[in-house]
């Protein structure tokens, strides 16, 4: 696994994509998407944020070129986060207690 050098051109390309996504998410926030589908504004904002995070992780942080072992650690971190979020939110959503 020889070291992979990401070119400046690639970095500038990723930066440009991140700025475009930022402008998009700010614009999307000013439009009422919830009238089409409840919670759509949040969903769009989080999908765009996740696209941005993926670009940063894969290219700025070189995860795309990392060893499989390092990639496994990254996936494990996200998996633990997902476990915490889904189990807790699932509990809140399905119990008969009144949280309001």
């Amino acid at each position, binding site marked *: 696994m020889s070291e992979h050098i990401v070119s400046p051109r690639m*970095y500038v390309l990723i930066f440009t994509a991140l700025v475009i996504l*930022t402008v998009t998410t700010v614009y999307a926030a000013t439009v009422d998407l919830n009238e089409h589908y409840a919670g759509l*504004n949040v969903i769009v*904002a989080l999908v765009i944020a996740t696209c941005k995070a993926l670009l940063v*992780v894969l290219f*700025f*942080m070189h995860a795309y070129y990392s060893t499989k072992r390092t990639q496994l650690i990254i996936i494990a*971190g996200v998996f*633990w*986060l997902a476990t915490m979020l889904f189990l807790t939110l699932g509990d809140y959503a399905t119990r008969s207690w009144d949280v309001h």
Partner: protein
Amino acid sequence: MHRTGELYGHYQTLEQQKDSATLGMWIFLATEILFFGGLFLTYTINRHTYAQVFAFSSRTIDLKWGAINTVVLIGSSLTMAMSVWSAQVGKKKLVTLFLILTLALGSVFLGVKAVEYHAKYVEHHIPGAAFDLYYCTNNPAACNLSGKALENEKTELDDLTTKAGGPTAVNAHSQLFFSLYFGMTGLHAVHMIVGAGLLVWLILQSIKGRFTPEYNTPVENIGLYWHFVDIVWIYLFPLLYLIDRH
């Protein structure tokens, strides 16, 4: 002793040594994901429970500063990545230059954050005895509110007070929002300050010419940390500033 990339006895190659360091950094970052994750979870549950008060409180934060800071931080990630590239191809002067640029952009981010925090202080939006979500509509001059904007804010706040169970409940739940706002952006800012300290150390090492194509692990790994802090902000920005704007 200065570590200049010599091979330690328990590794077979420099590449294996570097892979191990990167792996260790990622394991640390995995714990950081959970560290911030708990706060995001708390925010999600409370935002859902007190949706209207959270939405109103969120709209009092200045979108302009948040958007500017997002671009500043993404820019600092670019310069950080460029300093890693400079080290990998052996351009020693550029390593230092890009590290200084990264530190400068990080400082701009913290400066803007200070401006934002000060605005919240003026508006009595800092949780505690002086907290009052009604301060601005009662003292419009202090918050630079007038005319149509003041009327809108009053109507919206009256409507919210009726729906959300009276002014005491509104102030209590709004403090919950602002506690999370300051807690999350504050923890993020602490990470930025630690990152700035690490950058100062990197710059000093870099001026001495320590980073070469053979040895640049500190630049690479502090870079990983810096990008991680950027990602936290990538999620904080929409969740705190954006989702209730429309």
